[in-house]
């Protein structure tokens, strides 16, 4: 479904940019001439035009790749703008939960759970620090599973305040209490960010070893970064407060997302001479989009069903990253690689 909206987005964009279309046309003509000679195997793709995803055909990239490139640049700028805005207003590129800032998380479980708004108001009066109260719901039974209170305040203070509101004590049977010191949490945060950077570095080196050529490698690597930062932006838009598990998911996204890019680059660069580049790109898209779609369906469904906050966070980040991956790979990477092949005269 995401692919469809993306397709629409591309069309709208092209309508808004008449100037761009003009330059496109001239390039298209050039390409027509270039493609004259190696069009030996062109018959096959035409027979197989009617696929599940009809909006990407052999012509899509050859006609529109400059628009794609522009769209990719715009999205990159929007991502940077969002992160910059976040940074200037909150002091960091994301909202962090208490596992990264230090503080107390108390999850209350049981059959008669308190009203979130009432509890929130009560605690705001009792505790000087900011208090976040939210519910955790089980989509399969429609029941409210837990009420989660997060605050930077001291554990005993928070626990006492909640107990006063509830009128019964919090025990190991009806609650989960997590307390993190602020020094440790900020140290965890630093460590995880460094881990993320190292992960990015490792990914980049491995990609370079696989493809050797700098431009195609960078096109793949950009996608890893694009997905991770894009996922952060989606998390910011949904006001998600990122935990240690969330950063682990971002780190995993780094390696996970480049699978489709490797597929695309392999098909385009390592199989030159088999069919046309446009055909190979289309076939890579066809495979890659199913890969992303299956993963997305799996993690998105899992996101809605699981009740554990840790898993919910992980699956949210993975879903967001996969949505971004469609753009990063099939708008960004595809356009860059097509442009690169044009420059080099590859078919």
């Amino acid at each position, binding site marked *: 479904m995401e692919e469809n909206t993306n397709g629409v987005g591309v069309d709208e964009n092209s309508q808004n940019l008449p100037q761009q279309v003009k330059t496109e046309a001239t390039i298209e003509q050039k390409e027509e001439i270039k493609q004259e000679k190696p069009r030996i195997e062109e018959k096959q793709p035409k027979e197989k035009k009617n696929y599940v995803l009809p909006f990407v055909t052999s012509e899509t990239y050859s006609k529109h790749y400059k628009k794609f490139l522009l769209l990719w640049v715009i999205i990159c700028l929007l991502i940077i703008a969002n992160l910059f805005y976040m940074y200037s207003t909150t002091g960091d590129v994301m909202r962090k939960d208490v596992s990264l800032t230090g503080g107390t998380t108390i999850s209350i479980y049981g059959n008669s759970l308190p009203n979130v708004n009432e509890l929130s108001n009560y605690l705001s009066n009792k505790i000087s620090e900011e208090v976040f109260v939210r519910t955790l719901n089980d989509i399969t039974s429609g029941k409210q599973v837990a009420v989660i209170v997060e605050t930077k305040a001291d554990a005993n203070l928070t626990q006492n305040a909640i107990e006063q509101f509830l009128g019964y004590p919090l025990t190991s049977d009806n609650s989960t209490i997590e307390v993190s010191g602020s020094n440790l949490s900020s140290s965890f945060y630093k460590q995880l960010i460094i881990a993320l950077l190292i*992960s990015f570095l490792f*990914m980049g080196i491995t990609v370079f070893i696989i493809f050797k050529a700098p431009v195609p490698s960078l096109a793949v690597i950009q996608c890893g970064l694009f997905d991770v930062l894009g996922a952060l932006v989606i998390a910011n838009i949904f006001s998600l407060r990122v935990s240690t598990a969330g950063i682990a998911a971002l780190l995993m996204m780094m390696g996970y997302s480049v699978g489709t890019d490797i597929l695309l680059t392999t098909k385009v660069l390592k199989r030159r001479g088999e069919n046309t580049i446009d055909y190979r790109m289309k076939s890579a898209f066809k495979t890659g989009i199913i890969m992303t779609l299956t*993963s997305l369906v799996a993690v998105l469904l899992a996101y809605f069903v699981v009740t554990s906050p840790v898993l919910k966070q992980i699956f949210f980040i993975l879903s967001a990253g996969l949505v971004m991956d469609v753009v990063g790979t099939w708008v960004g990477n595809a356009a860059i690689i097509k442009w690169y092949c044009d420059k080099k005269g590859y078919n």
Partner: protein
Amino acid sequence: MAKISLRIGILIISLILALFFIINFNAFSGGVQVSDVSINSSAFDAGISKGEIIKQVDGVSVNSITAFYDEVSKIHILPVEIKVQTDSGLFKYDSTVLGFELDENNTIISLSNASSASGLKKNMTVEWINNYSLEDYSFSDIKEKVEPRQRIEILTNQEDYIFLTNENLGISVKPLSKTNIQTGLDIQGGARALVKPERRLDSMEMADLKAVIEQRLNTYGIKDVVVREASNPFSGEQFLVIELAGATPKELQDLIAKQGKFEAKIGNETIFVGGKGDITKVCKDDATCSGISQCVRTDQGYSCRFSFELSLSTKAARKQAEVTSHLSENISNGESYLNETLDLYLDDNLIDKLFISSDLKGKETTTVSVSGSGFGNSRQDATLNAQENMKKLQTVLITGSLPFKLNIEKLDTVSPTIGQEFTRSILIAALVAFIGVCIVIYLRFKKMKLFIPIIITVISEVLLTLGIAALIKWNMDLPSIAGIIAAIGTGVNDQVVMLDESETSKSYTIKERIKRAFFVIFSSYAVGLVSLFPLWFAGAGLLRGFALTTALGISVGVFITRPAFADILSKLTKE
């Protein structure tokens, strides 16, 4: 299909091995597992601990929970005649328990139904019970002697326990786990603390510290303790991660954050300190030499005193004799005491002052009675608090002080009941996600027969990952489960690449096509693996599970299931 290729053979053998590691064959030999032992019950005092497998109760094999409880319900303790002599006369009734509580003046402060039916009332003063005079025996001793108990024999996989029990045996059991998969704290419940030593420790000091913490927690009665080192790979900060699975004792903080430095002083002279050097034996869990002696009402509620005996080494006893020989005698309340007291300090706080009887002056006594108190709003609370304080004090006296001060940096307690809810939702999520993936694959390839190999590989990958996790005794926590699901996502991705590759580029043979697919698969695998690597070290290793299961999942995928899938695929397409 008649011939099984090498790769499919490898898959089958790996699966058999994985199942062998996952299945708990002990579960078939019968028994039930102890899920909990209530503190201060007779089973607890006998030393039965959580996790043991009970094979027999009184010589009868127990293979199910009902069989166990049937056998336990046979513990039928017959009521005995209880005779209570009070200031208001003699009262007789039949009961298995005394059924009343006394305050420090032996005045009845609470009654049960049976005892009150006999005519006993609050505020009566008890003089003797069944020939045991309260002048000669403490109330708890009499209770021990008068209340009927029954001999019980419980054979577990570790020991044959024979002990006396009252009606409250205190063991809860669960069916034997059918698998060897261990679940993490966030699923089975428990407590985890991340502590930082006050200064940098070398590896010897770290090992000492770990040993003392483990011993201290074990002595206190917490059995499943894991203490492991962790460090910040970038700054070199050291941490210890202490995990107690299935238990969330509120005392954890006291037990590890307090150094537990015990000193007994007369004036400024230290007589003895906690630990093996000065103390040879501490009386613990033995009613004859440890217990709650008396409770009094105070302004704020109740205060109970505990006392227990300990044996000093000859060196410490000599020291005491030397110091006391210089003291003079004082007479108060008709009894003669020395003019200085024995002061007990815990972490430099004075916890008790003990008067020293005059006849101990200059004597080398190795037996010392140590006491302290507990407080509470009700008598019961005060008793519990005193018992807790006594246990903590006994623990530090046995184990000595922690060699280094520790700061608790992170403390999580997870309710054991919540994990079950999480597990249920994870299983549903896995099923729903799997169905979702199948639908997408069907819409794309429109071939039902492709499902068989996909289902086989997905299930194989889960089993192989779990098999390795069971083999290396990895605790499956929530991030580990997320890792498995993510790895399966990669697995399905690779299968899509292979399916597509086998459909297109018809000019190549099926083998060549699959070989081409493997280039993409191996490249993605390499990238996926290296990018997970840093997660192993960051964050005190708390997210290791995620990195480990993902890495395991994608590795078994690439090396075992994918080659087999390729073979199955070429067989299917040949037909």
